[in-house]
């Protein structure tokens, strides 16, 4: 994976962006976290959280001018969360806040703070926590003199906050007006929180603003004098109306950071982008939340009771994006969100030692594109996972086992057993070529024959036929080499027919050709059928009394022409239909990205969620989607079942299963050759006749064991005589390792028929042999 691309992907996931409240707060109080704790009734933890951001929780809890509330997204669905009232409830539950803990600076420096208001004492508190010695000079007789007249603030709250300075070694000089020039000489740094008055006397030390206050840098609060910093209401021009306690607190905090950096010889300006009130990129889907009004306290003077605070906190959404996580069982499964996953996936590829724990996660994505569709930043985890697969496969570090079965199935579809390239009988050229794809051939070979006959009857100038594999499984597996090979084969076959327009019945084939073979003109079968005359039988009244819910294959997500054509066809057939989420928000059946091979559990979760969306029978135009629905007992029809009806209840047709899928492909080729081109192909003859109960067959499907695998084991046992006999049951147990996998079969031979009755099978990849 390209590190730069990874960073771009990461930056597009906004889940870690702060909620609007915390972003707008000058000191970024985690109001969302506070509400989450209060919603659980945990006031103690809420207070501890508040104290992590606020040195004087009782004062701010009573006086904060709460800019957070004006940006609260809850206001767009009812009323804003009363965050300040929640803070007040937190501090009212207990005034006691833990004392400041003096830090251990490597080199303890001395700092003078002039002015014991919120900015000065915040600077003092932060510098003590960083380990410096602080002396505070206040011209009044009391600390926080300005706040003491505020009727909203009980003096006990001030005293409780000041008690945090106990035993910190701080020295307070009240009733003193120190000489700033002398302080700047005596101390290593000086912070001035002088209140709103002009200070013309200081013009000798620092630059002044036109109205006579100290000019400071907006980011660092540094004055012209290298040791002197200033902030608080002195900086932002206070009148009684503009006084902002939280802004004063922020000034003290930011100046203290600058002073500490100065004392340590560090850059004053580096990495301060997030400082102060900000907007946020965090997306919140308000449509998910019903409006609600704020809780009104029964006693407004005393604020919320704990129960009222808890009820108000419960109204907080809380703000998160996670649109993709909510939409996708895969993204939900691993408990995180894309930004975290992308980091894990990148680390998984780049680690040198240790287990690569994200391998299966990378291979479990369905690559369906739904996440990008719902993401405000259009981030596609499919792109991330596919890139990771290609990278890991390229390094030989991706477990082969995840995709082995699917790629062996691909190998079958590339073999002589299935591939076929022909002009229409009686033609020497092809105007178009029908490419049904391996899965429609596997699911419903009869439909392939009917469609081909229909195309031949309705299109002049020759309809060629190509059977083979488009390479989608190789692409999804990250096997660039194999993908290129299948493309080369496809391309050669297509060229041998004179480069005709390719008509695909499978939307994955369509996707692969359209996206990866720009020289090949391709069109989906459905618009072609929709433009032409319908098969005679299709127009007959359909027996579906209920409307069919349309499930669009995920590979057609951005193909409105195909989606519309299918709807048009259904309309012409007189079929009643209903929509699920609409084509753009369609979800994967679990086959996409080969997820059902790498992680059956997640793929089935996605499938079951889709099934749960409607009780109607589903209609789709992808054979794999239809068969996957059938596998999970969801009634589903393919659009071809309506256009070329065969049988009473196509929605009840079971999933053929993997063994039958391969057999069907082979049978289709033999049938077409025989019926259309008068060519006989040798029928597979196998003396080994199997009897497999439905339960055992379902178990084999789950374990990805084909009946052909069973036959190989049985032939091997016959040939070598190597097998075990269970004396109690009379059954045999035999094994065979044709290549990378050992298959075991438990079976009995029916004495009358000579059939092999299969009682079970399993496999392992580890090779075992008797030690010599």
């Amino acid at each position, binding site marked *: 994976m390209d590190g730069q691309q990874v960073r771009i992907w990461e930056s597009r996931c906004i889940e870690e962006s702060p909620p609007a409240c915390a972003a707008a707060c000058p000191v970024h109080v985690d109001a969302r976290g506070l509400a989450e704790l209060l919603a659980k009734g945990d006031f103690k933890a809420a207070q501890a959280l508040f104290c992590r951001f606020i040195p004087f929780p009782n004062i701010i809890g009573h006086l904060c001018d709460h800019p957070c509330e004006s940006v609260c997204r809850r206001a767009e669905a009812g009323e804003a969360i009363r965050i300040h009232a929640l803070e007040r409830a937190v501090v009212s539950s207990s005034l006691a806040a833990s004392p400041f803990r003096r830090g251990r600076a490597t080199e303890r420096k001395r700092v003078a703070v002039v002015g014991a208001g919120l900015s000065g004492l915040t600077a003092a508190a932060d510098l003590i926590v960083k380990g410096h010695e602080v002396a505070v000079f206040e011209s009044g007789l009391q600390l926080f003199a300005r706040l003491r007249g505020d009727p909203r603030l009980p003096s006990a709250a001030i005293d409780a906050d000041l008690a945090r300075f106990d035993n910190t070694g701080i020295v307070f000089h009240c009733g003193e007006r120190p000489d700033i020039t002398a302080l700047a000489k005596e101390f290593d740094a000086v912070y001035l929180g002088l209140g709103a008055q002009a200070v013309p006397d200081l013009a000798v030390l620092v630059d002044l603003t036109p109205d006579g206050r100290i000019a400071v840098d907006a980011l660092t609060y540094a004055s012209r004098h290298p040791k002197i910093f200033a902030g608080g209401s002195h900086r932002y021009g206070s009148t009684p109306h503009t006084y902002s306690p939280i802004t004063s607190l922020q000034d003290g905090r930011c100046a203290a950071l600058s002073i500490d950096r100065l004392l340590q010889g560090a850059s004053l300006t580096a990495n301060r982008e997030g400082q102060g009130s900000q907007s946020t990129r965090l997306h919140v889907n308000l449509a998910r939340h019903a409006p609600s009004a704020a809780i009104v306290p029964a006693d407004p003077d005393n604020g919320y009771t704990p129960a009222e605070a808890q009820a108000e906190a419960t109204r907080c959404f809380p703000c998160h994006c996670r649109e993709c996580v909510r939409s996708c069982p895969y993204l939900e499964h691993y408990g995180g969100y894309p930004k975290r996953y992308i980091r894990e996936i990148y680390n998984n590829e780049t680690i040198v030692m240790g*287990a*690569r*724990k994200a*391998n299966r996660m990378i291979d479990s994505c369905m690559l369906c594109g739904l996440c990008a569709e719902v993401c405000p930043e259009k981030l596609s985890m499919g792109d991330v996972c596919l890139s990771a697969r290609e990278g890991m496969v390229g390094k030989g570090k991706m*477990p*082969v*086992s995840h995709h082995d079965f699917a790629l062996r199935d691909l190998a079958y579809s590339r073999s002589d057993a299935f591939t076929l390239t022909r002009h229409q009988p009686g033609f020497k050229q092809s105007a178009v070529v029908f490419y049904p794809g391996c899965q429609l051939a596997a699911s419903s070979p009869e439909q392939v024959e009917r469609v081909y006959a229909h195309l031949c009857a309705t299109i002049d100038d020759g309809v060629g036929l190509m059977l083979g594999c488009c390479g989608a499984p190789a692409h999804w597996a990250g096997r660039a080499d194999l993908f290129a090979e299948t493309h080369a084969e496809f391309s050669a076959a297509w060229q041998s027919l004179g480069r005709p327009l390719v008509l695909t019945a499978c939307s994955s084939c369509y996707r692969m050709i359209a996206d990866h073979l720009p020289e090949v003109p391709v069109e989906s079968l459905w618009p072609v059928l929709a433009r032409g005359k319908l098969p005679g039988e299709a127009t007959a009244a359909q027996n579906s009394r209920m409307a069919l819910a349309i499930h669009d294959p995920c590979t057609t997500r951005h193909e409105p022409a195909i989606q519309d054509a299918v709807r048009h066809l259904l309309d012409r057939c007189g079929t009643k239909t209903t929509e699920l989420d609409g084509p753009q928000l369609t979800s994967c059946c679990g086959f996409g990205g080969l997820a059902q091979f790498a992680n059956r559990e997640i793929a089935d979760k996605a499938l079951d969620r889709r099934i749960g969306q409607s009780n109607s029978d589903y209609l789709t135009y992808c054979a794999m989607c239809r068969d996957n629905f059938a596998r999970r007992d969801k009634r589903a029809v393919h659009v071809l079942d309506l256009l070329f009806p065969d049988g009473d209840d196509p929605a009840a047709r079971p999933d053929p299963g993997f063994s039958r899928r391969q057999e069907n492909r082979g049978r289709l080729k033999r049938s077409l050759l025989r019926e259309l081109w008068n060519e006989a192909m040798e029928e597979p003859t196998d003396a080994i006749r199997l009897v497999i109960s439905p339960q055992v067959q379902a178990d084999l499907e789950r374990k990805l064991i084909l009946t052909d695998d069973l036959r190989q084991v049985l032939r091997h046992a016959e040939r070598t*005589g*190597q*097998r*075990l*006999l*269970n*004396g*109690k*049951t009379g059954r*045999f*147990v035999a*094994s065979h390792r044709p290549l990378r996998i*050992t298959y*075991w079969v438990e079976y009995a031979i029916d004495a009358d028929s000579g059939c092999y009755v299969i009682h*079970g099978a*399993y*496999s*392992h*990849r*580890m*090779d*075992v*042999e*008797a*030690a010599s």
Partner: protein
Amino acid sequence: MNTNAPVETELLCAACRQPLVLGKVKASYLGSSFEVDLPRCPGCGFVYVSEALAQGKMLQVEQALEDK
């Protein structure tokens, strides 16, 4: 454990007509190999892997080696 004692008493090697006994077996996967005791035929050395082993411990070890 007496490694010559018959195990999996129901299973006989059909070719050698002998009950299986626990014996040293070399298990290998993805370039790693180790010895374990598994039921095998004392005659021809045919090794038996039960379904419980194949889908339990053995699968775990396979997956751990795959992710190394």
